């Protein structure tokens, strides 16, 4: 055995593992469909219903696209890896688990950003939204914070449940209310207390940040603070969960 050679550096491992995780994500047909095809379909359907308010519809669906990769992708990916014994296999190798998790996060960030860009592209080229490069630059704070919220809570869910099907149920049970409740509140379909509760949910605020960036408006402090609060809470819980053996 050659013991003089060093184990590959963590950075090199991270880059390589991110590449593999991206490839694996794209080979999962369901994950690819719900990340890249489902949000544009929702947007096309919704834009027919929402008439002139294409901007807010595009912004909210772009947030959904990010959530599909960051929240659903991470939660189901980790739960599924645990279910088939992959996490145990990885723990038997020299690959530090933190590098593997970071690679999953990086792959989901990359794919989520692509899905978001695809949705915005549909808004611009398909639905006539006036978008320029300046709009995309303004997206950065929302994108970073939004991914921090969705990704950290995706890690929490992935570390909580034991199977991919349980993760799927939990993601569906949380993601769609997160997405639909603000819409229902905007349309006055919720009682006052539920509308107040819905106003604290993160996807709506991510949608607002994206909307502001697309309009070229300044970034609102309140949506940023709400997202920051969710991100910190998610990161703390995820860190606690992930410090135990997965």
């Amino acid at each position: 055995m050659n013991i003089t050679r060093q184990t590959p550096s963590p950075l090199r491992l991270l880059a390589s593992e991110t590449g593999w995780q991206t490839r694996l994500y794209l080979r999962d047909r369901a994950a690819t469909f719900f990340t890249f095809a489902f949000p544009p379909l929702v947007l096309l359907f919704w834009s027919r219903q929402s008439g002139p308010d294409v901007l807010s519809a595009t912004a909210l669906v772009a947030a959904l696209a990010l959530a599909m990769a960051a929240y659903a992708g991470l939660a189901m990916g980790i739960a599924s890896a645990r279910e088939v014994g992959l996490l145990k296999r990885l723990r038997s190798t020299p690959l530090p688990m933190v590098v593997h998790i970071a690679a999953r996060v990086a792959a989901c960030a990359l794919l989520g950003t692509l899905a978001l860009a695809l949705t915005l592209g549909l808004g611009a080229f398909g639905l006539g939204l006036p978008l320029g490069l300046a709009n995309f630059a303004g997206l950065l704070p929302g994108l970073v914070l939004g991914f921090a919220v969705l990704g950290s809570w995706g890690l929490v869910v992935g570390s909580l449940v034991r199977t991919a099907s349980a993760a799927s149920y939990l993601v569906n049970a949380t993601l769609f209310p997160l997405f639909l409740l603000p819409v229902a509140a905007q349309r006055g379909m919720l009682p006052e207390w539920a509308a107040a509760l819905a106003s604290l949910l993160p996807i709506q605020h991510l949608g607002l940040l994206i909307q502001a960036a697309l309009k070229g408006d300044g970034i609102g402090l309140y949506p940023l603070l709400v997202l920051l609060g969710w991100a910190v809470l998610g990161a703390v819980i995820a860190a606690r969960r992930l410090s135990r053996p997965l």
Partner: protein
Amino acid sequence: MGILEVSDLRKQYGSIPALKGISFTVGVAERVVVLGPNGSGKTTTLDILGGFLRPTAGWARVLGAYVPHLPPGVRRQMGFVFQDKAGLYPELTVRETLELFGGYYPDPLPAPELLEKLGLADRRDRWVRNLSGGERRRLELAVALLGRPRLIFLDEPTASLDPEARLLIWALIEELADRGVTFVLTTHNLEEARRLGRRVLLLRGGELIFDGSPQTMIAQAGLPYQISFRRTEATLPPALAVRARVEGDRVTLPSLRPDEDLMALRGSGVGLEEVSIQPPTLEEAYLALLKGASHEHHSPNAVAPSLAGQ
């Protein structure tokens, strides 16, 4: 210092004790087989030694590092084959699987060499999800060997495999052992234990009830040899006749001291032809020791109670 050191290791699942304080040391290049019925603590032991489970009490050191915190430098010298879940990506091909896992090691074995050795060369571009159970098991073994491990844990590596795949895996494990790789293997297959093991650890109900060679295990079980012969003339001495099973001219005589009994037979003038002496099998010894352990612990000089007075 052993490559593996285990001291008073205990594991409790809620109120259920899975390991009740086992201790042993494994040296370099040892071939260790862990035997025991379901629920005896075999997989729990391996999971603790792999750093996947935290012991409730006691300690274990693997390649000098205390579990469960095994650093990457130690992990790269270890290989694992797990019992039930393969832990492979179904969306990768066989070749990609070796490429991915090989990337974690500083000097991985060349994939083509491994695939050839494990009879998977013509499956290199097949999706893992489309492999048969035996092929997947061989791929797991290939992944376990990628990093050129010094120590390999195999948890029932040939369970539910066809005889051809089982023989291939046995041959590979023997080859590894011949090259000085230490292995710890759990199995329910006593033929596998007899063929591969030079040392047996027998667990029952979370306790280590035997630690020694297969030959010692057979001897310690205190089971009789079977002396078989064809009788040509005269009658058996009364002391032996009470134990003998006679079918026509064929006699089978259970004996704890076959040499003495044969001398007694010859001395009594019994004509003996086609004499054979069969030692007890490892399977018989395994069952006897497990049965005996439910009453008492075995000491090295213990003899099966039912035969002790003969």
